[in-house]
């Protein structure tokens, strides 16, 4: 295993590599096609490079444990707004997730629907490309249109374009209060319609999810608001008028409901393959028949638990998603299943050609997590 501790060492390791590298941070997100190759761990690149709470900016080494990042921010009453999921429970992994892994997978939780994804808060990257060259893009300021935005390209590229060495974020103050409005027993269609009403209101909803009856003891629909205490109380009241039958839950009780959605815990420790599907929110319920479902992002993010048999439902799910518009990724399945099925969504030919072209440019030797996004 290669364990560089500086960016220069990392560049040297990539330069010197003679075969494929399997890049890991904390190793808690074994998603994608299984990659054969020498393990290159970024965990040795650790530590906060710069934190300016008054400028809402944080720059950290890519291998820094996510928990450390959270603790540093919490000490100043701030947080990463995109609420990344912890994959350990769902995937049955252990270890310490790193911030670089969060970025490489563009992990974004329930708040994505309001404030944006990991890629939206990522303002700078440094990485080593497949030739061993150190590249920086973006920086430490929130507004930056200087040159092309490779920052977004790196987010969610799963280590296939470069090995991240440092990442910068726009952070935000953690709000003083939160509350959720919760209803039970709605169908997926009813639930998603309510979420849509909440998200289409002026009340700045920061989470909108529906868990179907099999995932929760009873189907549960929930809408979240966050902010100053008085504002949260006001908006909770207004949303309760808008959404008859919803009850208000506050503070830690509310937070627990969202952690469950964020981490997809109803599917943790249970048999079956898990799909993560992004569609237009109102199309979400149309996928419910294909498996047990948890709907986040107002219905637009669908987690499906299906039997781990045959192609894990790939053909049926992808056909339906193709009709609707969107994409489906097989997030959890055995190595054998992931080797046999296209884990990431196959792209139409002209887009696939662009993607393949970019990979060939950034990693001409094809050594960085080769095939992981196949």
């Amino acid at each position, binding site marked *: 295993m290669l364990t560089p501790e500086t960016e220069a060492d990392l560049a040297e390791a990539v330069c010197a590599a003679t075969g494929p590298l399997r890049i890991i941070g904390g190793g808690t997100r074994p998603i994608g096609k299984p990659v054969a190759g020498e393990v290159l761990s970024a965990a040795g690149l650790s530590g906060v490079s710069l934190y*300016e709470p*008054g*400028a*809402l*900016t944080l720059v950290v080494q890519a291998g820094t444990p996510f928990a450390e990042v959270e603790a540093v921010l919490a000490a100043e*009453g*701030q947080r990463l707004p995109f609420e990344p999921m912890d994959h350990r429970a769902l995937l049955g992994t252990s270890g310490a997730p790193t911030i670089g892994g969060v970025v490489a997978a563009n992990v974004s939780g329930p708040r994505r629907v309001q404030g944006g994804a990991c*890629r*939206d808060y990522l303002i700078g990257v440094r990485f080593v490309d497949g030739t061993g*060259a150190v*590249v*920086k*893009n973006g*920086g*430490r*300021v*929130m*507004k*930056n*249109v*200087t*040159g*092309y*935005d*490779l920052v*977004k*390209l790196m*987010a*969610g*590229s799963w280590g296939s374009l470069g090995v991240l060495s440092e990442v910068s974020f726009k952070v935000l*103050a953690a*709000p003083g209060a939160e509350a959720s409005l919760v209803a039970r027993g709605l169908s997926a269609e009813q639930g998603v*319609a309510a979420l849509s009403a909440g998200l*289409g209101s*002026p009340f*700045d909803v920061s989470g909108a999810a529906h868990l179907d009856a099999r995932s929760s003891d009873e189907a549960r629909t929930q809408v979240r608001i966050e902010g*100053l205490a*008085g*504002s949260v109380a*006001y908006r909770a009241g207004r949303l309760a008028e808008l959404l008859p039958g919803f009850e208000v839950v506050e503070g830690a009780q509310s937070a627990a409901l969202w952690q469950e959605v964020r981490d997809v815990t109803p599917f943790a420790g249970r048999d079956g393959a898990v799909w993560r599907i*992004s569609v*237009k929110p109102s199309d979400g319920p149309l996928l419910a028949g294909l498996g047990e479902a948890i709907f986040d992002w107002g219905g*637009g*993010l669908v987690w499906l638990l299906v039997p781990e048999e045959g192609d894990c439902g790939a053909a049926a799910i992808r056909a339906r998603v193709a009709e609707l*518009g*969107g*994409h489906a*990724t097989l997030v959890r399945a055995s190595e054998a299943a992931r080797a046999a099925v296209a884990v*990431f*969504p196959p*792209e139409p030919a*002209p*887009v696939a050609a*662009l*993607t393949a*072209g*970019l990979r060939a*440019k*950034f990693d001409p030797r094809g050594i960085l997590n080769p095939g992981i*996004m196949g």
Partner: protein
Amino acid sequence: MEMPAPDASILAKKPRVVARLAEALPAGAVISDPTETRVYECDGLTAYKCPPLAAVLPSTTEEVAAVLKICHEEGVPVVPRGSGTSLAGGALPTADSVILGVARMNEVLEVDYDNRFIRVQTGRTNLSVTGAVEEDDFFYAPDPSSQLACAIAGNIAMNSGGAHCLKYGVTTNNLMGVRMVTMAGEIVEIGGAHLDAGGLDLLGVICGSEGQLGVVTEATLRILRKPEGARPVLMGYDSAEVAGQVVSDIIKAGVLPVAIEFMDRPCIRATDDFSGAGYPDCEALLIVEVEGSDAEITEQLGVINQIARGHNPVELREAKDADEAARIWLGRKAAFGAMGQINDYMCLDGTIPVSELPYVLRRTEELSKEYGLDVANVFHAGDGNMHPLILFDANKEGDLETCEALGAEILKLCVEVGGCLTGEHGVGVEKRDLMGAQYSDADMEAQMRVKDVFDPDWLLNPAKVFPLAVTASRRDFAA
């Protein structure tokens, strides 16, 4: 500023290229008469002008594809154009290029309130996107000051921002999908009404690529429900340091204003004379705006005003009604117009870490004295996006050059303190030759590789963004 010499062989075959374009497009969509192509000789950066070989105004994506196929076959460079308001020279033609304007493509294709998006043709102006949904209380958030004129096409190409992006983000954060035509004439769909990419985030790199990767013809944009209300408060301070501290304290306090705007003394004076907004005469003026219901606004302003008072303001004025709110914004909104009345000006938009604000303002003042040109500052302070306006006299020999040299110094200063050359206007030709101040050769190489993939012959808007010397081998090879 230098542009590549036009390719004589292209100039020579103008009649054939024009004939082929005319054959592919409806009548009236090809402009080749030199008296008419002059309309397209520049964009908002009027210091540089050059009429194109021809201009085309297609009405459909298919027509755009036909144009690009012909130009690709003929090896003719293409410069995409929205409304031509770029301040960076992004839409500046060369004499051997075809301007491809999307102005005739301005339809709304789909509005979906349940799923909170709108799909438009990209020639549609920014403000008219909001216009299409505001009766139903929705809006499109990114609001460049040029929003009455600028098109979504240019907004996407430049990843434009606006006064309200502290809360709502810039174009890239509100763009869900595009339909785009590559230089080879191939139509691709990227993203859509769903969120985020399933594979590589191509949308993320297309947004902000300054018309160099493809011609975007349709866009799916996120729309939001309008907040119940908004209210600004105005604060004046005796020093930029203190005002900078106030900005930091506010954004740290857990209230996220939609806008924090900053004006310095030269700017306050100039705009107040012009607009009669009644601003206090002080070193630094802040306008902070928050949104929500009345009660929520009062709660947020409670926190903000307490911070403001703690720093001994010269003035602290909260708008009590819509009239007062308008008066607070009056001067800020008139700032550019006011400057334009007094002088010619060049507007830069480097971004800096908020903490460096006092130092950068002080250093800018020193540079301004050194170069003998006045600089007024008005900017989006919440995110450190400066807008120094350098005042000069276009009719005075050498003034433009001095202005450019001073501008370059100020932008380098922004980079030195940890910021960047441009926060929202883009590089274009204006900042092209400064790219090396921010990015190493390897950094630029990585970016240019993206263009190599999308446009291997380097025909789309080729002389922009990267220093000419850096792109020479690619452009020459292609020719």
